[in-house]
């Protein structure tokens, strides 16, 4: 199968200290890859590297990140702008906080679309409503007219996913998309992301420390500890027969609910 995004021996350093070491993995079309590990393991840093979001002190010091025949760390800001948002979308832990508090969701959608292609308000709104419908939003019109603070945390998160999907990117990177949410709301967001994959065939990398989320979403899993790959393979394989000692320790630490049939 074609490879969409190809990390080859990637090393990432901050102020000259390597924090991610020799990470290699491939993302295929429509695949959901779960990146798991504890705080400080380098999960977020890995996907931020693809978006050029390492800040002024961080950089990819070794290896390549290939996307559509280009090595992402080598691209200029100008070239990155054509890829980020349009071909690779990203959502964050708290979408409400990454939206502007003084503009409605609708205004921000128009703005973000206009950054990539020529559009006007009716066209942007039509595209957004169409997408809201596909993602089964109950009241798209209300979301369009709302300020972020008028929506619940879960609804903000879903709106963030919708905004990221407006450009129909081939890859969606998600940094702890459910960690700030209640379990019931978490489930809605997870279902929405799976719906996105069904409708658009989007490949995703989900960074999370929540093994439960990964177990229902991911096709493959990469386990990181202190910037090193501990285990990488098919999700079922890693979750059911972990080979690495650290993976075993991580999985055994997860409290599991014994559920009856309800």
């Amino acid at each position, binding site marked *: 199968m074609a490879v969409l995004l190809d990390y080859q021996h990637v090393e990432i350093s901050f102020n000259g200290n390597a924090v991610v070491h020799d990470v290699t993995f491939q993302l295929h079309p429509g695949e959901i890859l779960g990146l798991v590990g*504890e705080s400080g393991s380098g999960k977020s840093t890995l996907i931020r590297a693809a978006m050029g979001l390492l800040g002024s002190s961080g950089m990819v010091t070794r290896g390549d990140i290939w996307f559509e025949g280009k090595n992402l760390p080598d691209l200029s800001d100008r070239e990155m702008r054509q890829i980020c948002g349009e071909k690779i979308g990203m959502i964050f832990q708290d979408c409400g906080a990454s939206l502007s508090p003084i503009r409605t969701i609708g205004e921000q959608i128009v703005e973000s679309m206009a950054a990539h292609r020529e559009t006007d308000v009716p066209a942007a709104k039509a595209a957004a409503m169409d997408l809201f419908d596909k993602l089964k939003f109950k009241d798209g019109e209300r979301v369009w007219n709302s300020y972020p603070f008028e929506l619940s*945390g879960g609804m903000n998160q879903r709106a963030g996913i919708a905004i990221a999907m407006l450009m129909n990117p081939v890859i969606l990177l998600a940094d702890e998309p459910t960690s700030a949410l209640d379990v*019931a*709301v978490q489930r809605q967001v997870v279902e929405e992301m799976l719906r996105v994959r069904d409708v658009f065939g989007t490949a995703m990398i989900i960074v999370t420390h929540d093994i439960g989320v990964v177990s229902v979403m991911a096709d493959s899993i990469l386990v990181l500890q202190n910037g090193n790959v501990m285990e990488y393979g098919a999700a079922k394989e890693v979750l059911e027969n972990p080979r690495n000692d650290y993976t075993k320790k991580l999985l055994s630490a997860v409290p599991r*609910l014994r559920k009856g049939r*309800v």
Partner: protein
Amino acid sequence: MEPVLKVTDLSKSFSRAGKNEFFAVDHVSFAVMPGEILGIVGESGSGKSTIAKLITRQIDATAGKIEIDGQDITWLNGRQMIPVYAKIQMVFQSPKGSFDPRRTLGDGICESLRNQGVPKAEREAMARSLLEQCGLPGDFLERYPHQVSGGQCQRAAIARALMCDPKILIFDEATSALDVTVQKQIMELLQMLQQKNHLSYLFICHNLALVQQFCDNVIVLYDGKIVEQGRPDEVILHPKSEYAKRLVEAVF
């Protein structure tokens, strides 16, 4: 046996201009027996933390009664509360946020005994031994919050809560901010301390699996009301209320 903590018809409401009163906690009653671990689960906004704040008198109740060790503390003033705080202590969600960033962990840990007039050498020796019980080297007393990890800081917060030899500890999402491996270590520590000192815990948590493993009894809170209570396995395996069913189903 007398309960260590008894809450009767406790309510906290907020009045809003032009709207009905909003009940954050709505006529809640429960009791915690000596040596019991009681879990409180529910989603954000269900009133879990408000209950903890009411019991520790960080905010005042609108109605109802709070008794600790048989003593009604609902309306005690600050001075009268000092001896009560020797019986009830709290561990918060954000370990670093609960220590003064400009003071050492030792200052924070020893503060309760300093308020009670225990001499410096004595309280420091005690803090050192408690830190060691909580799995930290004694010289962590000299460290500042930013010099330790989140898990270590939470261990120090547990040591701080144990300083005045309380009967009941309240944990408000005390492990939610920690990684699962650290969470497991902390839970093991809590279990060990509970058995050793015959403590009672009020364990506020949104993680049902953790409550199932750890608690003797559980209360399910929704919109400030208790919608279900019982043994964790009963509530989780055979939920009776609609809300508890939904909560259990939502867990992956």
